[in-house]
C-alpha cells in the first residue's frame, strides 16, 4: 500500500533524460535550479534578518524534517508521522547534553560533543521506532508512528527529570567559535542552507544508488524484492535510520534557531504539520518538502494579515491550512508540484498538438518538468 501507488504521477520519463540521470546531477543542465541556488546563496544581501531567519531558515529546517518523511514515504512507501518527534528528541538531547538556562538538567558539554551525541541518540531512537513500525504493513505505519509521536509528547509533559515537564528547556546555548557567533542571523542562515543542501543532494543521490533503488523496489513490491534476495525489513529499517539522521540534523538546527525546546514543539499537531508540508509540496521528489515548507511558513506568518484583509477572523490559520491540505489531497496526486506540472503539460500539449507530438515528448522539452518527472518512482 505504498504512497506511490495512490499518487502515481502520469509524467513519463524519457530515455535521454533517464540515461543522463544515472550518473550526473539532474540539476546541472537546469537553469531554473541554478537561479534558485544563486538566489539562496545571496539571500542575506536581499532579505533582512526577519525574512532570513523567520522565513527562509525556518522553511529550510521544516523542509529538512519533511524531506526525511519524503524519503520514507516517496521512496519507501512508509508514511511516518514521527519524523518531527525524532527531530524534537534530537533537539532535547542538544539541550540536555549541551548548556542551557536550566543548569539542573543540562550537562553543559561543548556543542561539538553534544551535537554528535544528540544525532546518534536521535538516530537510534528513530531506528528503533522504525523497527517497530515495519513489523506491520502499509497503513498501520501511520497509526504506530502517530502513537509513538503522541507518547513522546505526553512523556515530555510528564517527565521533569530529563525533559523538564511542560516548561521545557530554555536559553539553550548556541555555538561560538573562530570568533563567530554562529547563531547570528547571517552565519546561521548559511549553516542551515548548507545542511539543507547537503541533505537534499544526499537524498537525490541515494535515490539512484543501489540502496535507494532497492527501497523503491520494496515500495513497489516487497514480496518480489524478497524473491530477488533482498531482506525487505532490513532495508526498511535502514531507511528509517537514514531518515532519522536527516530529521535529527533538522532538530539540532531547530533548537539552535529557537534556543529553547518544549513539549509544544513536539505536539501531535506539529507532527501532522510535517506530513502536511510534505504532501502539499509533493512527496515523490526531494524538492517537494522544501516547497511545501515555504508555503506553510508563508501562510503561518502572513495568514493573520491575509485573513483580516479578507474580513475574516485572523485566528483561523489552522482552518486555512486544513482546507488547503484537503484541497491538495483532493485535486493533486503530487502536491503543488504535481498541479504545476499537469498545468505545464496541458499548456505544452495544447501548443504541440498541431505538430502531432503527444504529452510525453512535450514533457521532455520542458526541461524542469521531465527532469523531475523522471525522478518519480
Amino acid at each position, binding site marked *: *500500500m505504498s*504512497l506511490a501507488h495512490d499518487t502515481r504521477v502520469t509524467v513519463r520519463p524519457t530515455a535521454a533524460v533517464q540515461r543522463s540521470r544515472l550518473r550526473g546531477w539532474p540539476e546541472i543542465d537546469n537553469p531554473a535550479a541554478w537561479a534558485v541556488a544563486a538566489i539562496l546563496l545571496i539571500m542575506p544581501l536581499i532579505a533582512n534578518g526577519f525574512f532570513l531567519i523567520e522565513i527562509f531558515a525556518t522553511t529550510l529546517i521544516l523542509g529538512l524534517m519533511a524531506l526525511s518523511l519524503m524519503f520514507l514515504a516517496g521512496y519507501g512507501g512508509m508514511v511516518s508521522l514521527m519524523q518531527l518527534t525524532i527531530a524534537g528528541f534530537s533537539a532535547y538531547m542538544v539541550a540536555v547534553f549541551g548548556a542551557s538556562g536550566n543548569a539542573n538538567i543540562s550537562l553543559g558539554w561543548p556543542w561539538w560533543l553534544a551535537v554528535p551525541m544528540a544525532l546518534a541518540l536521535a538516530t537510534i531512537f528513530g531506528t528503533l521506532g522504525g523497527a*517497530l513500525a515495519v513489523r506491520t504493513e502499509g497503513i*498501520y505505519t501511520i497509526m504506530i508512528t502517530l502513537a509513538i509521536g503522541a*507518547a513522546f509528547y505526553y512523556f515530555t509533559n510528564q517527565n521533569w527529570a530529563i525533559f523538564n515537564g511542560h516548561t521545557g528547556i530554555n536559553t539553550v546555548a548556541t555555538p561560538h567559535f573562530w570568533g563567530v557567533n554562529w547563531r547570528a542571523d547571517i552565519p546561521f542562515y548559511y549553516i542551515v542552507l548548507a545542511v539543507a543542501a547537503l541533505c537534499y543532494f544526499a537524498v537525490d543521490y541515494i535515490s539512484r544508488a543501489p540502496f535507494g533503488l532497492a527501497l523503491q523496489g520494496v515500495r513497489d513490491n516487497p514480496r518480489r524484492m524478497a524473491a530477488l534476495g533482498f531482506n525487505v525489513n532490513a532495508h526498511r529499517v535502514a531507511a528509517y535510520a537514514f531518515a532519522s539522521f536527516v530529521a535529527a540534523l533538522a532538530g539540532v538546527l531547530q533548537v539552535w534557531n529557537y534556543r529553547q525546546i518544549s513539549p509544544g514543539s513536539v505536539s501531535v499537531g506539529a507532527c501532522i504539520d510535517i506530513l502536511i508540508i510534505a504532501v502539499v509540496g509533493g512527496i515523490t521528489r526531494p524538492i517537494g518538502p522544501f516547497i511545501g515548507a515555504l508555503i506553510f511558513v508563508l501562510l503561518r506568518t502572513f495568514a493573520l494579515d491575509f485573513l483580516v484583509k479578507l474580513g475574516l477572523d485572523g485566528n483561523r490559520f489552522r*482552518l486555512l491550512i*486544513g*482546507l488547503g491540505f*484537503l484541497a491538495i*489531497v483532493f485535486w493533486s496526486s503530487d502536491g503543488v508540484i504535481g498541479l504545476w506540472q499537469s498545468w505545464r503539460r496541458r499548456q505544452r500539449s495544447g501548443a504541440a498538438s498541431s505538430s502531432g507530438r503527444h504529452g510525453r515528448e512535450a514533457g521532455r522539452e520542458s526541461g524542469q518538468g521531465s527532469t523531475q518527472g523522471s525522478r518519480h518512482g
Partner: protein
Amino acid sequence: MTRFVERHPAWALIVIIAIAVALWLIFAVWPQGLEDAVGRKRVFLNALFNGITLGGLYFLVASGFTLIFGLMRNVNLAHGSLYLFGGYVGYAISAATGSWVLSFIVAFILTALVGVLLQVLVFRRMEGQDLRQTMVTIGLSIVFADLMLWACGGDFYQIQTPNWLIGPVELPLVTAVKSSGEPVYLRYPLVRLVIFAASVVIGVAMWLALNRTRIGMIIRAGVDDRDILAATGVRIQLVFVVVFALGAGLAGVAGVVGGTFQSLSPGEDIRFLLASLVVVIVGGMGSIPGAALGALIIGLAEQLGSVYIPTYAIVVTFLIMVLVLAIRPQGLLARR
C-alpha cells in the same frame, strides 16, 4: 478456550495465576505488610475501578474506530474529532434541556449524521485508496478542530451529571477493617458504574448484532474478506454507510460520557484518537472483542500507572503497545 490452553500451557498458567492474584487483591483484606509496601487498598481499588470504567469509555471510542477500519480499511484519524463533537453537542443539549439521556440521543444522531455525510460525500469517492482516505481524515481533523475551537472556544466544559446518578454508592468490597473489627466498604461514584455497565451492554449488543443478525454477518464477512461482500450481491455502499454511521455515533456517545466524567476542551480529540489507536493496535485491528480487551488493558495501565508510577504512566501504556507489536504485531485478538 480449551484449544488455547492446549496450545500454550505456559501462557495459560500465567494468565490463571494473574487472575488469581488479581482476585485476591480485590477481595481479600490486605495484610499490613502489603499496605506498607504499596499503599492503602482503597487507593488501589479506586485506581482499579477508575481503570475499568475508563476502559469502558475507551471501548466506546475505539469500537467505532476499529469497526470502520476493519470493514473499510479507513484509518479515520478524525475519529477523535467526532468524539469531541459529540461531547459538545451533548453539553449543549444537556445545558439547554437539562436532560442527560436526551443529550446521548441527540449526540448519537448528529455524529452519526456527520459520519454518513463523510462516507457519502468524501470516502466513497476514494474507495480502495487507503492512504488518500487517511490523508483526508487528517485534513478533516484539523478543520473540525479549528471549527470547534471557533464555536466553543478554549474553555473546559463538563456535562452536568443527573441528580439520580450523583453521589457514591457503597460496594460490597472491603477496603480495610477498623480496629473495632467493623469492615469499611468501598464507596464509588454511581455514575461511573452506570456508564461502565452501559458500555458493557453496548459492547455485548454490538457483539450480538455482529454475530446473530444478517447485517452483522455481512459486516463480519466483509471484515474478513471484502471481495465476499461484492460477490454476495449485498448493497455494499449501504453497509458501509451504516457502519460509518454506527462507528461515528458511538464516538459521539463516548463524547457525552467523557464530558460527564472528565471534561471537554480542545486537545481531547487528539487524546482520544491516541487512545483509540493504542487500543486497536493492542487489541487487534477490526476486532470488537479485541477493542474491549485493549480498552481494558490500556484503561487499567493508565490509571494504575498514574497512581503508582506517576511520571511514567504514559510510558507504561506505550510499552504495552511496543510489547504487543513485538510479540504479536497483528494485535492480541486479531485473526490474521
